[in-house]
């Protein structure tokens, strides 16, 4: 059946809702191949249809619908992956963890960098200098100024905004200002202990 591969691509994304599966280059290539083949066939039949043999019109129409469907599936696949990549910027900061990096292709990595840059430029424009707002932080209403955190990995020295240097060793407990730790909590380096 036509457009089978396109639908498979979309299904692949649908099944993997929580993570980003590897970029299915093969699948994309096959869809494009199919489109090319259908188009060539259509060109041949279309010229004979124009010449007057009207029985080709239905097959041209079917192929055209298949082409449109393929295009739509492919665009949906690519666009949906972009959406997930954008989400990653909000969760992980601007460096992707290596397992996600392995699953995205080069243009997607470029898009991620460009999106990060756009976002950074926008955030910079809100305030000035150190008073700009990092929109990826402050996701929950603040309850306390300081929170108790436990360090999960050997991080080393960490400097707070006030200039205090805290040495984050594995499994050490600290009482730190909430704003400073948010980025590290999001990455899993620190863990909130209630």
């Amino acid at each position, binding site marked *: 059946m036509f457009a089978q591969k396109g639908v498979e691509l979309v299904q692949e994304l649908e099944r993997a809702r929580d993570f980003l599966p590897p970029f299915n280059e093969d699948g994309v290539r096959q869809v494009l191949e199919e489109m090319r083949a259908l188009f060539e066939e259509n060109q041949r039949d279309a010229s004979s249809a124009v010449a007057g043999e009207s029985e080709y019109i239905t097959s041209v129409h079917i192929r055209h619908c298949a082409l449109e469907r393929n295009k739509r599936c492919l665009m949906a696949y690519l666009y949906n992956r972009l959406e997930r990549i954008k989400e990653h910027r909000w969760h992980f900061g601007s460096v992707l963890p290596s397992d996600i990096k392995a699953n995205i292709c080069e243009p997607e990595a470029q898009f991620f960098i460009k999106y990060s840059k*756009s976002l950074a430029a926008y955030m910079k424009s809100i305030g000035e200098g150190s008073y700009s707002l990092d929109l990826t932080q402050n996701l929950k209403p603040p309850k306390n100024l300081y929170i108790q955190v436990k360090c999960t990995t050997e991080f080393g020295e960490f400097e707070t905004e006030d200039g205090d240097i805290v040495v984050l060793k594995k499994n050490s407990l600290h009482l730190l200002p909430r704003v400073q730790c948010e980025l590290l909590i999001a990455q899993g380096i620190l863990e909130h202990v209630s």
Partner: protein
Amino acid sequence: MASYSGNLTQLSDLFGTADTISETEDAEFLSASEAVKKLEESWLNEMLAPELLSPQTELVDCLLEQTKNMEENLMAISKSDFRFALHRMEVERIRYVVTSYLRIRLEKIEKFLGYLLNNENKRQRNEPSLLTEDELKFAQELNSNTETHLKTLGLRHMPTNMREINTQKFITTPNRDSYVFVCVKDDAPSVLVSDGTSEGEIEVELLKNSQHLLPYRSISSLLQNNTVNLL
């Protein structure tokens, strides 16, 4: 939520900065607590409305100025003073509201990208825009990045007559018919609400301080001129 602004006035009294006043372009004077209250209202409205509302840039700028001043004042006080903690908490709360407000706007911009950019293009010069300059820049960059990406990976390799996407067909428009809870601030005598049929509309009167569940479409203009608030 109302307690936030309450705390702020108390603290400002404590510091003697009760009269921190900022000016907007229309020479309106807002006291600190009023600014925060207004921002909270805008924040709630933005969160609950299905479409993007007008940006409250002056409010945001004013409050950020406020927090900046407060932080600078804070530098002067020692950390162990309890007032420091309270004041700091206040700053954090204001920053949270502003951050959340801007974040919600960004989310809506990303969601309704095509629709908003279309409106921007069609907008006349004297009409106010729904996007700030920086937001517009962000939206345009995102749009062009997405298009380039789709072109590189897919469209470029497709047969020649299929290389364009008709973006008009694929944009999401906000659903202006979704229902929202409203709280009426001032009397609104004639509000048109559809009565279920496709053409019929009933006029309804909204009394001050009453609460209703209405389709967004009917009250969007009222929301704009601040007659109602969303809950």
